[in-house]
């Protein structure tokens, strides 16, 4: 059973007639920039589909922070700096304010799986707060949080 967020649960619909908003996860920002990443081609393909649907991409300040760290370690500081300069055009940032942060902590406590990171929890909370039902991510654990992976709806 997916863990439930406080308040109204994210609907578990099987058909998505229109996709207008998509939340982007760290592994996509990184995979799309690393040709050797096993999910690189899939990420580019999924991006092209979203592009054709003219979706709006969102992400959180937590994901941006995590992405900067991974990019710097994996691909070098210049790439991380480039991301820092351009993330505001790539996506709309959902800032994790004290309220969202507290909600994320409460949610993290309730999630039983050890594989769900705190950032995953804050992403799920930010998505719910902004009525975003789809996440562009290759982390299958998000299904446990009641959100839909991009690959499931395209």
């Amino acid at each position: 059973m997916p863990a439930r967020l406080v308040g109204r649960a994210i609907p578990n619909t099987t058909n998505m007639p229109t996709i207008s908003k998509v939340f982007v996860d760290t592994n996509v920002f990184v995979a799309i920039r690393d040709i050797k990443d096993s999910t690189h081609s899939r990420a580019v393909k999924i991006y092209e589909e979203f592009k054709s649907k003219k979706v709006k991409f969102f992400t959180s300040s937590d994901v941006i922070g995590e992405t900067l760290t991974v990019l710097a370690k994996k691909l070098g500081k210049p790439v991380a700096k480039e991301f820092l300069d351009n993330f505001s055009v790539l996506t709309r940032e959902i800032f994790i304010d004290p309220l969202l942060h507290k909600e994320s902590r409460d949610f993290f406590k309730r999630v039983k799986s050890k594989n769900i990171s705190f950032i995953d929890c804050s992403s799920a909370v930010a998505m719910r707060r902004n009525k975003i039902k789809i996440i562009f991510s290759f982390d299958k654990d998000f299904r446990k949080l009641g959100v839909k992976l991009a690959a499931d709806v395209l």
Partner: protein
Amino acid sequence: MLVRKQILLQDSHEYAIKELAALAGKSFSQMTRELLDKAVKVEGKKIRKKAKKKMTQFEAWDKWIAGAVSGPGDSEYDKYAYDL
């Protein structure tokens, strides 16, 4: 390095620059260069900011993808990811 370029000025610009050059005791060319220096700095910032804003989300993504490099791959990614 100074380069010779022919540009068209409004006559009002010519009079204004001539007046400023006379007041500052500088040549017309020197005065024009100094004014351009300031204009490039101030206006350049605004224009670059505007140009950046104008880039669409998908143009930014296409640029991000175009900059893809051959990285260390998944095993290294996992190592780094678990270090977070």
